[in-house]
C-alpha cells in the first residue's frame, strides 16, 4: 500500500510527459517502420504491404549510396574539425594566458572572443545559409570571390564545383558549431581544479604539456558528448544544404544527403513507403553510430 502510494505519486508526474513522448516521438517512429513495409503514396486510403521490397530497392539505389558516402565524409570531418578547433579556442580562452597570481587566465581579450565565437550559434540555420550564399556566390559579387578578384584571381565556384561543394558546406557547419563547443569545453575546463595546473606549471610544464597531460584527459567525458552530438548533426544538415546547395544534390550529387532525399522521395515523388524505408535506415545508422561511439570510448572515469 505504502509502495503503491509512492509509485503512484511518481507516476502522476511521469504520466503527462510520457504520454506526450509516446504520441509525438515513439508513435511516428512506429508508423514509419510500418509504412516502410508498404507502397503508400500519401494519398490513397488503401495501403498495400510489399514486405521488405523497399529495403531491397534501397540497396540498389545509387542516390542512397551517394548520400551515405556524403554522410561518411561528414561523420569523419565535422566532429573532428569542430572539436579540435573548439578545444584549441577553449584552451586559449581559459588557460592560454598561462598562470597569473592564484589561477590560470586566458589570452588577452578572451571574454570578448567568447561572445564573438558564440554569435553563429544564435543565428538560425536558414539565416546562416542565406548569409553564406552571399559569401560563396560564384561570381565576383561573392564575398570571397570579390576578395580573390582584387588579387586578380579567377572566381571559384565554391558551391558549384563537385569537388568543393561539400567541403564548403562542412566549413559553414564547423563555423556555426564551434562557438557552442567552445562554451561547452570552457565549462568543462572551469571544472578542473586550478591547483592541478599550478602544480604542473611549478614543475615546469609548458602550455602544450598542460593541454595534453591535464586538460584533455580530464575533459574526456565532455569531448565524448560533443562527439556524439556532432555525429548526429552529421546525419542531418537538412536546412543548411537545402538553402546552400539546393535540394537536387547539386552539383552531381556531391551534396546529396539522406534527409533531403527522404523529403523529396516522400513529398515530391509521392513515395511515402519508400521514403519511410530510407528513414528507418537513417534511424539505425544514427543509433548504431551513437552506440558504437559510447562503447569504444568507454573508459574508467577519472575522479577529480
Amino acid at each position, binding site marked *: 500500500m505504502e509502495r503503491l502510494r509512492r509509485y503512484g505519486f511518481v507516476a502522476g508526474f511521469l504520466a503527462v510527459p510520457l504520454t506526450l513522448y509516446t504520441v509525438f516521438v515513439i508513435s511516428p517512429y512506429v508508423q514509419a517502420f510500418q509504412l516502410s513495409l508498404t507502397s503508400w503514396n*500519401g494519398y490513397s486510403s488503401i495501403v498495400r504491404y510489399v514486405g521488405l521490397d523497399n529495403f531491397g530497392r534501397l540497396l540498389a539505389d545509387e542516390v542512397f549510396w551517394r548520400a551515405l558516402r556524403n554522410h561518411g565524409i561528414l561523420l569523419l570531418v565535422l566532429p573532428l574539425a569542430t572539436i579540435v578547433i573548439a578545444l584549441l579556442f577553449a584552451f586559449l580562452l581559459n588557460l592560454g594566458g598561462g598562470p597569473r597570481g592564484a589561477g590560470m587566465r586566458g589570452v588577452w581579450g578572451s571574454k570578448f572572443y567568447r561572445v564573438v565565437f558564440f554569435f553563429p550559434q544564435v543565428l538560425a540555420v536558414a539565416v546562416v545559409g542565406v548569409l553564406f550564399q552571399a559569401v560563396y*556566390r560564384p561570381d565576383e559579387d561573392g564575398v570571397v570571390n570579390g576578395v580573390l578578384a582584387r588579387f586578380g584571381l579567377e572566381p571559384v565556384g565554391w558551391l558549384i564545383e563537385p569537388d568543393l561543394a561539400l567541403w564548403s558546406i562542412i566549413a559553414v557547419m564547423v563555423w556555426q558549431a564551434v562557438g557552442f563547443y567552445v562554451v561547452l569545453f570552457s565549462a568543462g575546463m572551469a571544472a578542473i581544479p586550478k591547483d592541478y595546473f599550478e602544480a604542473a606549471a611549478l614543475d615546469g610544464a609548458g602550455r602544450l604539456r598542460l593541454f595534453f597531460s591535464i586538460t584533455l584527459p580530464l575533459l574526456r567525458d565532455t569531448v565524448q558528448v560533443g562527439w556524439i552530438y556532432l555525429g548526429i548533426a552529421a546525419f542531418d544538415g537538412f536546412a543548411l544544404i537545402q538553402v546552400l546547395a539546393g535540394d537536387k544534390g547539386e552539383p552531381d550529387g556531391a551534396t546529396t544527403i539522406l534527409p533531403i532525399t527522404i523529403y523529396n522521395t516522400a513529398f515530391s515523388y*509521392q513515395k511515402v513507403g519508400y521514403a519511410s524505408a530510407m528513414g528507418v535506415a537513417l534511424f539505425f545508422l544514427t543509433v548504431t553510430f551513437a552506440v558504437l561511439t559510447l562503447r569504444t570510448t568507454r573508459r574508467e572515469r577519472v575522479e577529480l
Partner: protein
Amino acid sequence: MTHPGEITRRQLIRRIGMTALVAGPGAGLLGACATAGTGGGEPAPATSLPASANPKNPFGVDAKKPLEVAIFSGAYGDAYAKDLHEKLYKQTFPEAAITHTATQEIGTQLRPRLVAGDPPDVINNSGPKSMDLAALAAEGHLADLAPLFDAPSIDDPAKKVRDTVTPAVLTNANVTGKDLVLNYTVSHRALWYNAKLFADKGWTVPTTWEEFTALGETAKGEGILLFAYPGQKGPYYQLWNVLYTAAKIGGNQVILDIDNLVDNAWNAEPMKRAVTVWVDVQTKYGDKAYFGLDHTQTQIKQLQNKVLFYPVGSWIENEMAKDKPKDFEYAIAPIPEVTGSDQMPYGAIQVGVGENFVVAAKGKNPQGGLEYLRIMLSKEGARSFTELTKNVTVVNGAAEGVDLPAGLMSAARAQDKAGQNIITEARFEGWYKELFDYGTEQINVVMAGRITPEEFCANMQKKADAVKRDESVTKQTRSQ
C-alpha cells in the same frame, strides 16, 4: 489589337479533330492506363456533380454554403483571388462566407487535409510543392470539370464555357482520362532579350544558329554574354530550352515520345543535337558562375545588359517589373534555326497554358468550387486578372482593351507569326516529377561540361526506363 487567346482560336479546327481522336478510341485506353499503376485496375470513383437547369446557377450552388479558396502565393501573388474573384463570387452569393487561404507550400499544407477529407473547395495547385494530380485523381479527390466546360458562359449564356477558352485548356485539363484541371494562364516561352539594347546597337534578332553564334562573338567583344540561365534555382529553364530546341529540330513528336516514355526517346538525334548546340554556346559564350546564381540574380544581370538571351516565359516581365530600368524592354525571340532543315520553321515558340486550379470532390461545397472557376473564366474575372498581374489568361478576348506591357505585346505578335507552329510543352514535368528533377540536375552537369551530350541523353533514358518500370508511378499518355 491582336490577343493571344484569339490567335490560338485559329487552331481550334485542327484541335477539334484531334480532340475527337482522343475522346473516341483513345479515351478507353487512357482510362485503362490511368489506374494500371495503382495495381487494382478499378476505375476512379465517379466525381461528377449533377447539373442544374438554371443557366444563372448551373451547378445548383447553395447560396448560403461557405466556400474555401486556397491560393499558391507565387509570382502572381494572391490578391487576384482575394480582391477580384472572391469579391465576384460574393456579389453572386452575398450570404456565402468565403475563407481565403494563401500559402507557398500547397502540398505540405493541403495534402493532409485532402487525405483527411477536409479539403478547401478550390485549390490553386502550383509551385514547387504542388500536389501529384494523377495520384489525387486516382483517389477520387478531384471533381470532374466537364460540367464546368459544358456550363453556359457567364458573359453569353448561349455559349458554353469550353467555347470561350483557348483549346489548349481542354487538352491540358485531362488527367488520367478525365477533365480535372483548369489551366488559367497563357505563357510564351522562348528566348527573352532587351529590344532597346538591340535597337541601340543596331543588332537584329538572329534567325539561324550561325547568326546566333556570330552575335555571340560581337557581344563577347562588348563584354556581354550571349546566353545564361540560372543554374541554382532554375536549371529547368534550360531543360525546357533544350527540349523545345529538340522539338524545333525534330518536331513535337520528340517531346510526345519523351512524355509517353517511349523506348530511347531521349536518345533521339534531335535531342542529342539540341543538347550539343547549347553546350557549345555555354562553353564559348557562357559563364560558369551562373550555375551558382538563382533566377532573380540572373535576371538582374540581364537587366544590367550583361546577358543577351535568357530562356524563360512571359511571366518574367511582371516578375522583374520593379527592378526593370527604363531603357530595358522585354521582347521574345524564337529559337534560331539549328540545322537548316528543322521540322518546325523559324518562328516556332512554345505557347503553354499554366497555373492549375482544381475543385475538391470531397469538399463541403464542390458546386461552389465549380461556380468559382466559372467566375474566373468570365470576361470580367479574366480581364481584371490580366490588369492586376499583367499576365494573359486562357479566356479568349478578355485582354482586349487592357494596356499590356511591351513584352506581352511582343509575345502576342510572336504567337501570331508562329501560327500553327507551336512547340508543345513537356508534360512529364507534372507526370513524372522524379524524371524531371533528375533532368534539372543533369542539365547543369552537361552544360558545365562534366558529361557529354550523349551521356546526358543516356542518363536521362536510364532514368526514364526506371520510371517506366516503377509500378508505384501512375502512368499517363498523350497523343498531341
